[in-house]
């Protein structure tokens, strides 16, 4: 487990152009960013690409890396949130273009892992569909706090907004989801 001192030393090394510090940061947080990106995109392949982009962004902006309470993680989540938002935006354009093309035959793949991954992708996309009616800013707060386990303060640091804004966005998101759930139950 990394201590606060470790992490600050890591951030300092990163700011001083040490590629190993970037690799260490990736080793330490790559999985968490990967899963955050998966929850933002609903696609494991996109999550891989986004994770690579996030850490490349971190390197390019290494002198701006900030530690919040001794951890670079909230800042990393902020970068990931922005990268995935842009990825989703460009993917929507790409999908519209691809949708106009003839569909290729899908080759079946029976590998268990692939099936599991497809299953989790389908489930994640259903979840994303379910929260689609929420404003994007509320979706992001929900993703950071409820799904990625950040504290209000960390999410505020990640999104560069006041803590009160995080609280109110999350509160509104929960209220909307509750309304949707009860409406869905009535429809059923």
């Amino acid at each position: 487990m990394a201590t606060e001192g470790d992490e600050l030393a890591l951030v300092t090394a990163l700011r001083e152009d040490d590629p190993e510090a970037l690799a260490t940061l990736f080793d330490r947080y790559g999985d968490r960013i990967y899963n955050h990106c998966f929850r933002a995109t609903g696609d494991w392949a996109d999550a891989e690409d986004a994770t690579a982009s996030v850490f490349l962004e971190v390197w390019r902006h290494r002198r701006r890396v900030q530690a919040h309470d001794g951890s670079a993680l909230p800042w990393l989540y902020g970068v990931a949130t922005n990268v995935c938002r842009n990825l989703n935006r460009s993917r929507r354009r790409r999908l519209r273009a691809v949708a106009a093309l003839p569909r290729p035959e899908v080759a079946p793949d029976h590998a268990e892992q692939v099936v599991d991954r497809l299953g989790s992708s389908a489930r994640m996309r259903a979840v994303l569909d379910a929260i689609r009616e929420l404003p994007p800013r509320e979706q992001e707060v929900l993703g950071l706090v409820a799904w990625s386990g950040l504290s209000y303060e960390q999410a505020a640091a990640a999104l560069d907004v006041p803590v009160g804004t995080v609280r109110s966005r999350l509160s509104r998101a929960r209220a909307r989801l509750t309304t949707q759930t009860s409406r869905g139950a009535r429809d059923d």
Partner: protein
Amino acid sequence: MTDPTPPPDEPMPDQARARIRAELLGAAQAERRSGPRRWAIPVLAAAAVLVVAGAAGWAVRAGNGDGGGDSGAPAGGATSASESPVESAAPSETLGESIEASKVPGTQEDHRVDVKELGCAETVTSTLPGAEQVATFPDVDGHATSVWVQGDRFTVCDVVGGMTTTHRPLPLVPRASRETFRVSSAYLPAHGGGFEVTRLAAGVVPDGAPAYAVSYAFPDGASVDAELTTGSDGRRYWRVLHSHADDGGNETKEPPITATLRLSGTEHVYTLRWGLDTCAQANHGC
């Protein structure tokens, strides 16, 4: 309604982890090895282009009585001066204060700043290594377009509003095919909200083709004739540039862009396919 609980976390596949780690280390070490001198020449070249483009863009906006609004970083040189990689060697506190567009990297505005810093001279080193600039087109609406040649191929590069677009290289001897007339699509935040999309196409006028004319018809009804310029290599190049508001709708439902080539009394019409022929750029997505 679906329970909004995501599936459990999964570790990144080992192969992907190794690949990304290697890419990160490779990119970081390459940049560190090359150091600031690698940046100096392209940055100076890009800065020169941006100052021209920025001044033109700023002047146009000023002329329209537009104070710039709140669309993030203003176009052109105004921000490039304060956000150049040369300054990024300064301590983080100073840098942090100088960057207003975004404190957390990764936003679209932030990408604009980065791409802007690259400019054509740097971007083309990836698109067409070893290429040299042989021609430029007159600035239009803040667009600074240049043509770069290496061997038997060329690429076009356009800088506008802080965004650089380079095309995938094409042969200097043009083929009579749709590929020759593909357009790139660049989306930039518009002043009044939403996005403005710029379509760019460029090519080479074949040797011995005095009567060579290209024009494009766009879904918004605009018809744009190609402009010609003569390069330092003696070749003639053409460019078509068209910007319009992106209404956020599904562009694939719109009529296709068509390119018409008139050559020696004959006429050929190429209908561009959305996505396939409207994404000619090499350095960013559509």
